[in-house]
């Protein structure tokens, strides 16, 4: 087991190098509008150096004058030591900005995820036990509608109904107008109020896939021989479903839940942008739009790390949860 984990970790690191190199290459090959834009601005100041000189100086200061490979190695040597450079847009070290916004995204993601679990698992189980009943159709259709809903459209409808027509929530932002006047408790409530719609959007849009996953796995288990045996033994249906079937359904569920944990940090780019919630998603979106290479580079590497971590965790979880799975060393 340990050998397997070590092997996987090494492989992940290798993949990470490749991914970050690809991302770096793509970013470097793009017309770096930000540098040029800044150079134009600086050169227009009275008595300033001409544009070409500024461009050269800026490129040198950002390590853009080197070839792609040396540039990547420079970036890598910094990144290994935890130095990702200064964000061009936010003019602070990338990690500082990251630290500032990540927790909001995490809290939002975590609340949404817990709600998803609470909604999806019971409904999925019920749908599977009553296959082809009206409930099953409703759950399946509901899950598919959730999956099919484009986030931006659903978020806008929520805004129209709850912010504009009912006036319960603000349209944008994390804090209200008189946030500064509130006490600590009031501030927390104010933020919570502003997070209701984004979290609702996240839950509705992503609850469907978990619901379907639960249903499919539950169905598979219910068709298994040991369930027939349990029924033949004369166990009550309740016992069959909740003690024999559901427990076995938990195997794939726990695997997938474990795999989604790193994803909680990735932030919801679209939802955060729509509601202007200053989490990691919105912050990176703003940075990426103006071609802020240090921040984009960091964010994309971070996402790659999260993906690798979630793959690794689900594989390990699978072996841990299911005693039948033995990993060959």
């Amino acid at each position, binding site marked *: 087991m340990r050998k397997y984990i070590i092997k996987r970790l090494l492989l992940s690191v290798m993949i990470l190098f490749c991914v970050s190199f690809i991302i770096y290459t*793509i970013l470097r090959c793009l017309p770096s509008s930000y540098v040029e834009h800044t150079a134009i601005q600086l050169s227009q100041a009275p008595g300033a150096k001409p544009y070409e000189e500024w461009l050269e100086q800026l490129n040198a200061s950002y390590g853009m004058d080197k070839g792609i490979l040396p540039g990547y190695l420079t970036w890598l040597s910094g990144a290994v030591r935890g130095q990702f450079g200064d964000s061009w847009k936010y003019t602070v070290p990338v990690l500082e900005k990251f630290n500032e916004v990540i927790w909001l995204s995490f809290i939002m993601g975590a609340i949404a995820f817990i709600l998803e679990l609470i909604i999806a698992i019971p409904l999925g189980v019920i749908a599977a036990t009553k296959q082809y009943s009206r409930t099953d159709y409703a759950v*399946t259709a509901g899950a598919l509608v959730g999956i099919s809903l484009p986030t931006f459209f659903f978020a806008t409808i929520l805004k129209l109904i709850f912010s504009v027509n009912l006036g319960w929530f603000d349209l944008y932002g994390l804090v209200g107008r008189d946030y500064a006047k509130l006490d600590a408790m009031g501030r927390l409530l104010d933020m919570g109020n502003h997070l209701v719609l984004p979290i609702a959007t996240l839950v509705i849009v992503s609850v469907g896939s978990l619901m379907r996953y639960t249903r499919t796995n539950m169905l598979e288990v219910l068709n298994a021989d040991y369930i027939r045996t349990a029924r033949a033994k004369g166990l009550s249906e309740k016992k069959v479903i909740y003690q024999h079937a559901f427990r076995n359904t938990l195997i794939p569920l726990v695997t997938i839940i474990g795999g989604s944990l790193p994803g909680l940090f990735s932030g919801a780019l679209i939802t955060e942008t729509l509601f202007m919630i200053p989490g990691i998603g919105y912050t990176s979106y703003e940075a990426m739009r103006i071609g802020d290479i240090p921040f984009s580079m960091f964010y994309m590497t971070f996402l790659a790390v999260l993906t690798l971590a979630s793959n690794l965790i689900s594989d390990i979880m699978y072996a841990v949860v299911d005693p039948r799975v033995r990993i060959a060393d």
Partner: protein
Amino acid sequence: MEENKQNMQEQNEQEKEPYSLNDDRRVKVLSPNAMVLQRFFRNRLAVLGLIMLLVMFVFSFIGGVISPYREDEQFYRYEDQMKEYVGVVRNNDFRYTAADGQKFDTILQAEFQLAVNNERDSFEYKGTTYEVLEEGEDLYSISADGTMLAIAAKDIVNAEGAEVSFDVKYGALKAYTNEEESFTANGKEYELDEEGNILDGETVLGYVSRFVVSSESADVVPSRVFKEELETVIDNDETEFTFVDEDGVENSYKISYDATTMTWSVKQGRETYVYDSYAKPNKEHWLGTDSNGMDMLTRLMYGGRVSLIIGFIVVIIETVLGVILGGLAGYFGKWVDMLIMRIVDIFYCIPSLPLIIILGAAMDAAKVDPSIRMLYLMLILGFLGWPAIARLVRGQILSLREQEFMTATEACGIRVSRRIFKHLIPNVIPQLIVTCTMSLGSTIIMEATLSFLGMGVKFPFASWGNIITDVNSAYVMTHYWFVWIPAGICLLIAVLGFNFVGDGLRDAFDPKMKR
């Protein structure tokens, strides 16, 4: 009735030949494909999805042909913009005209006013007696020692061209108040017509009127005819009138009276030719128009075409790449598998949405042509999407190639390429179809999201995503539902259709499903 039915049944039974027990015809034989179809059509959600898809395809591909408008046809409308044109004051003060070579200053004017108010026919000032003679209604002449000093009148003589002499003015006013048609001044005969024009033979010297028309802006010089028309309208207490000017352009005016300043302000309705933007749904535009004055319904049809075509092309690219690479990896195993699967791992880790946003921003900066941009978008989406399909194909082929029929193909000496594409791939097709249908839905959502963010399909091309972009302004969101709700619903129906059908196919292909 009962009997009839029974007879019918008996007849039917007689018509049916009695099959022997082992007759094949006793069993309804269905090919596997027919069974899949049967299972599919028994699934109500799947059928609903199929109908939804059909509707969306007809809407997008045939609708665009039927629609009388083009994708980027802009519509205009005339908009009445009311602008202050002139102000009209009815003169209620005396206006004084001094005779040639005489003076009638403000003190005298005030004394005269007093005298008129007290109905005296003379007043004194600094030892001089001034005589006031009422020559008609609101027309007085003031004279001292037998010489006429001035006239005071509420009607005003407006000169047309050269200044009108005092004598003519006097005569005209006198004739006007007493409703005479001609008068003589300086031994010359002048005529006064009904509209108050002072005529010297044929030429119009000026006209008499009680209204003062002053223009609100420097470039407006109201014509004489306009003023006359305006007076009659004001006399009749009308609030609206239209007037055709010398160039034959018809303008409409609105008149409002302000009691405190006692002025009529006349506003001109200038018809401005503007884009018919955000028109409410009407007969010509069933779903109204968008911000550029384009027909919404037509945009939706063409947008659907773009969205669906992009979806299909992307999925085709994904599938071709995924099947080839996944097939190779699964069949050859060993280092080929190793290599391809590592590439898949790497592609899996590249965050696609951020990458496309960055590429989109770069294309924005480089001002890439919208049609080329659309091509890039499809290539990028397809190129980032193949690893999932490659994994699926590889997994299937890994388990299939250990089966007996593959050993048989090897024993028969069938070519490798034929073994892969003729014997292995067809067995993967069911899962492939399901995955492709589902990923059509998600690709359409992805494209719509990017277009919504302004990173995907760009104007002048329509796509369901970029139609909804207008909603970014809160005003549009709250006031013009028809701009974004229909597009969102189209998007939802199409994606839902793909997902329902995909889900139905998955169930139908699964032989374990009891249905």
